[in-house]
């Protein structure tokens, strides 16, 4: 054994570049897996933290369908809590709204420091500097606490006065303290006493919600029951955890895409590792065969190689985990930005390192390394010593395997199709199909490469001999070229698929925006989300819509309502002059709109998918009268809200909710009036209250830019995958170049110039890139179909029309050639300047 180990060590010492490549391959493969998962997990963790800050110690929340609650309900609960065997109920009132300080919009929380359960209020309490401030908090008007980051950005110090814009009024305030820096999730937050918040937001006698803390265990359950019995029908008691989960479902769709990417990263990473490690073993087949010939047993050889692969695997995987954590830090920002654009403000202040991910990535790396060593090792150890010495035997075997992989590839495609067909809703099946498909591409590539290489060599028969030799060599050296080409083909297929999916999605979105945004101007009161200050009262609506130059208008009241299935966004609409024509119905035709005007609702595709409802069904919503059933008259396309929404006639909404406020107006201009002039008139009419006015073009552009930013991360990830595949190509070419140094030298002695040798290496690489691309084109199309029609459909319920755009293919082609070119540069340079005699003497 000593001898064997010494031989291995010597080999590795003499082939440090090879060792480094294998290590690099492992590191990058494992690193990619870790990085992608890390970025996703960190963004999720940040989101959960911010939820905790909002929810704090509260286990439940009480809220009403109409939007807010009478404060008397809180008083009743605080002074006469439901009795259940000595288990105390803790409740705390909360008022929520928005305030603007300088150019920043802050979440305004009105809290009661004496009962506060919410993290934000606790954080606020923790920041209170003392008795004086505690007194001020209650007795001095305008006392506020602000998160340290916002205060810093506004240049505010404790004790300083500031002006706030709340519910359309400018009010004086004084900064009494910061909400601790260490309160994660306390971003863009302004906390004031509940009395002050009530006054500022103009909601006397009302509060936004009641936080409640119920103890765990049977006592808590009994208390919950007693509490429910005491509540009016219109008041909902929801566990904050359930609410958080529901909100979190929003990001599920987003993380679904990320998971698809990390799956891709895993696949490409594993191929890279396989390539890197197996080359290392194959390159030594001569040494190993000699050892066998000298009497080493099969088991010994096998053990030796596996031991080495395990060492390499552990080292590379460890490095990979470290590298992944580093890359993950860089990705986290991108992921968080996407979430911020789409859903809510999340400041990713710390990177969460999920142990499970590290373990999975490490295990995948190590297992792949072992497998990558085992397959060639079995081959070398199993072959009779004299045969093992021959590369021709080896390549023949590789060709056999490549051909055997073709039926396997077909089988995988069939399995993928089966997975899709056999399930109608399972997202997991969708992912499985995607996985199988990509593997099928990889399995098919070597055989394809060999075939086209042979064909190309024959076709070029009359032309350059060097080129012909080179191409034939690509096909004959499948053990080297096959795996690298397969990894590249797979990465390119995924890339084309994702690009097509994103492009189609964008086109569907644009079409939808075009059709939906029919009004010339859209007007709303400022404020990032719904709150009392953001609404127009009927008087204001009349004032604004009767201005000259306005031919017609639509009115919308948007809010979130409760239902037995959780909160749902409701869009109550008084349609504009084009009626329902601005919607594309997936189910229900003209009769749907008639029903809509008479109390039925329409639901968006994502909601229909999520709740498994459709035309003819009903939907129960919590109205101030309690649970009310609404008939569903149709399903419409909608890409703006992946959780789905309900469309209801404004009249129907007002009948049930007794709320005649309006969140937004769509203004249709009379002929001959300019949008700018009318916008100016609207602003003048509303003064001093500000208005948000956007033209339909602006909203379209904004929506599309948000969409594009959302997929920045996707783009980054597939470039990463392609980059990793390119690296696989480099290591393959290098290994190949090393092992055929003698052949190349022979060619040189036969009269090929060094430049010619380099050109040959370059041409071989480009050919491989091209071959990978050709395989990737149909595979990419199928992948795109799986992504749009299966995965996106199953994740969000969206119906996306697949549009084949050349841009995605072009990018993939450029990337393939670029990867091939870059990968070939160094090996070509080496091949050109290899000293002839040394290379000839090697064997």
């Amino acid at each position, binding site marked *: 054994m000593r001898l064997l180990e010494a031989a291995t060590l010597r080999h590795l010492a003499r082939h440090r570049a090879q060792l480094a490549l294998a290590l690099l391959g492992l590191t990058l493969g494992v690193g990619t897996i870790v990085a992608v998962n890390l970025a996703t997990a960190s963004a999720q963790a940040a989101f959960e933290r911010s939820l905790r800050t909002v929810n704090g110690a509260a286990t439940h929340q009480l809220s009403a369908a109409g939007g807010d609650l009478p404060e008397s309900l809180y008083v009743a609960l*605080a002074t006469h809590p439901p009795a259940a065997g000595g288990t105390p109920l803790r409740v705390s009132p909360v008022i929520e709204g928005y305030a603007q300080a300088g150019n920043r919009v802050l979440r305004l929380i009105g809290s009661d420091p004496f009962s506060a359960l919410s993290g934000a209020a606790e954080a606020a309490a923790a920041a209170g500097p*003392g008795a004086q401030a505690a007194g001020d908090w209650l007795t001095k008007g305008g006392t506020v606490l602000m998160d340290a980051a916002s205060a810093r950005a506004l240049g505010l110090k404790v004790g300083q006065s500031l002006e706030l814009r709340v519910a359309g009024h400018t009010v004086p305030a004084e900064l009494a303290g910061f909400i601790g820096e260490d309160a994660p999730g306390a971003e863009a937050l302004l906390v004031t006493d509940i009395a002050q918040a009530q006054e500022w937001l103009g909601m006397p006698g009302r509060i936004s919600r009641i936080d409640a803390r119920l103890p765990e265990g049977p006592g808590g359950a009994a208390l919950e029951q007693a509490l429910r019995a005491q509540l009016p029908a219109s008041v909902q008691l929801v566990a904050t955890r359930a609410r958080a989960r529901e909100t979190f479902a929003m990001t599920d769709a987003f993380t679904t895409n990320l998971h698809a990417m990390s799956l891709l990263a895993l696949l490409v990473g594993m191929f890279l590792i396989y390539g890197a490690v197996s080359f290392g073993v194959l390159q030594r087949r001569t040494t190993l065969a000699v050892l066998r010939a000298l009497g080493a047993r099969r088991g010994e050889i096998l053990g030796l190689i596996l031991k080495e692969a395990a060492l390499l695997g552990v080292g590379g995987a460890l490095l990979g985990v470290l590298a992944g954590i580093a890359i993950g830090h860089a990705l986290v920002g991108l992921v968080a930005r996407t979430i911020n654009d789409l859903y809510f403000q999340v400041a990713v202040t710390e990177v969460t390192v999920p142990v499970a991910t590290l373990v999975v990535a490490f295990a995948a790396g190590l297992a792949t390394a072992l497998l990558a060593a085992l397959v060639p090792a079995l081959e070398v150890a199993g072959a009779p010593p004299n045969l093992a010495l021959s590369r021709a035997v080896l390549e023949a075997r590789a060709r056999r395997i490549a051909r055997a992989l073709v039926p396997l590839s077909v089988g995988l495609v069939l399995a993928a199709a089966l997975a899709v067909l056999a399930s109608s809703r399972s997202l997991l099946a969708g992912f499985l199909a995607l996985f199988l498909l990509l593997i099928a591409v990889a399995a098919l590539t070597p055989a394809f490469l060999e075939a086209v290489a042979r064909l190309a060599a024959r076709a070029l028969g009359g032309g350059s001999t060097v080129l012909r030799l080179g191409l034939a060599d690509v096909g004959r050296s499948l053990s080297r070229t096959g795996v690298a080409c397969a990894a590249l083909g797979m990465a390119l297929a995924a890339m084309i698929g994702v690009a097509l999916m994103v492009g189609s999605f964008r086109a569907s979105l644009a079409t939808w925006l075009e059709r939906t945004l029919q009004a010339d101007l859209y007007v709303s009161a400022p404020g990032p989300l719904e709150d009392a200050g953001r609404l127009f009262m009927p008087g204001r609506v009349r004032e604004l819509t009767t201005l000259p130059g306005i031919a017609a208008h639509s009115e919308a009241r948007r809010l979130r309502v409760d239902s037995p299935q959780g909160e749902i966004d409701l869009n109550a609409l008084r349609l504009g002059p084009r009626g329902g024509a601005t919607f594309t119905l997936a189910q229900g035709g003209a009769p749907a709109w008639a029903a809509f005007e008479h109390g039925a609702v329409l639901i968006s595709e994502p909601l229909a998918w999520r709740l498994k409802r459709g035309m003819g069904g009903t939907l129960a919503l919590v109205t101030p009268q309690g649970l009310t059933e609404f008939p569903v008259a149709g399903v419409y396309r909608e890409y703006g809200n992946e959780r789905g929404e309900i469309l209801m006639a404004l009249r129907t909404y007002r009948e049930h909710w007794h709320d005649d406020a309006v969140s937004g107006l769509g203004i249709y201009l009379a002929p001959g009036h300019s949008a700018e002039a009318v916008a100016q008139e609207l602003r003048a009419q509303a003064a001093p209250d500000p208005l948000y006015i956007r033209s339909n073009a602006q909203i379209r552009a904004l929506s599309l830019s948000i969409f594009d930013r959302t997929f920045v991360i996707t783009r980054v990830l597939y470039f990463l995958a392609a980059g990793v595949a390119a690296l696989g190509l480099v290591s393959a070419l290098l290994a190949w170049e090393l092992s055929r140094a003698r052949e190349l030298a022979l060619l040189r002695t036969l009269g090929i110039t060094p430049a010619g040798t380099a050109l040959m290496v370059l041409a071989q690489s480009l050919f491989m890139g091209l071959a990978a691309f050709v395989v990737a084109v149909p595979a990419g199309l199928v992948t795109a179909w799986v992504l749009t029609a299966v995965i996106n459909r199953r994740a969000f319920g969206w119906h996306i029309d697949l549009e084949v755009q050349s841009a995605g293919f072009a990018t993939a082609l450029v990337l393939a050639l670029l990867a091939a070119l870059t990968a070939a540069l160094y090996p070509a340079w080496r091949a050109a300047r290899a000293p002839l005699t040394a290379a000839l003497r090697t064997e």
Partner: protein
Amino acid sequence: MNVRRAVIALAALAALAAAAASAAPPLEVAPLLGPAPAGFAAAEAPREFQFPDDHGPHPDFRQEWWYFTGNLEAADGERFGFEFTVFRFALAPPGARPPGDSAWRAREVYMAHLAVTDPARGRFMSSERLERAALDLAGARARPFAVWVDDWSVRAVEDVPSSWLLRAQADGYALELELDASGTPVLNGEHGLSVKSDTPPSASYYYSLPRLGVRGRVIRGGQAREVTGLAWFDREWGSGVLGRGQVGWDWFALQLQDGSALMYYALRDRDGTRDSHSAGTFVEPSGETRPLGAGEVEVEVRDHYVARSGTRYPSAWTVRVPHLGLELAVRPVLADQELTTRPRYWEGAVDATGSRAGAKLRGRGYVELVGYGAER
């Protein structure tokens, strides 16, 4: 003892701040020095007490409290101690205009402490509530008598004004006690005017009901125990603050077997000596009261104990009133009776054994220790 609990109220307000602080700092009284703020009435001269009106709040004064402590016993002899206290603290003088019109605007804050001593289980439970005097969330009234903070309350039973029902629950313990408040109030100090310091001048109105009969239930983990016992009711209001140099106090309230009762508070100065404004009252079994001056009572500390918070408290005393021939050894029924409220202080059920003029005497009561710092 106006000041003692006023300090607790103020410090608690300061500490409502430090909601997350795990270890509240020992009571710091220095920042609270200063004359009573303008706009509040001051306790300057003896006054005519009116009952039951004076059981109700005195909003012209800055601070006020209702203090119940008592020792209870079940039929099988199992013992409990309880403390239920409500503080009222005004943040602005009575005439002050609130800055807004929300019903949540409040001029006063109420705070309540609840503690149950359960020597059989070796447990001491303490809990607190803070609430603004708004929307009837917290408040007090004289007729019919009531004082409450959220769902913790003492309220006169309908049609029986001198029978009060105490209800409060926290952390596995609930009290449902009926208190007999028909006794004659004992006016402490000079006809109820209790002078606390000369610099700055400060005093309060202070009376006690030293022997309230108690019947009711202690509910522990959902299991009710019928109990009877004796409670002590302390009432005090004023607008003043602690004197310069005073750091804390030791307060004794003992109900003795012969029907007598002893109340004494030893104010401690920064230099460790007893303040000359320390005072007390002895109530004879006949109801006759004897004011006790600082020099008329000797308190000798026999032992110490270090609480979980690290604070070192005295834990056994010998109390002597030489001119009454009274000598009592006072011991806590449980060493660990430190309230983990904000601020932390020690207030616990005690047993007293000793003699008066040669005759053996036993009793029970409560001791309060405020202003002790961490052991160095």
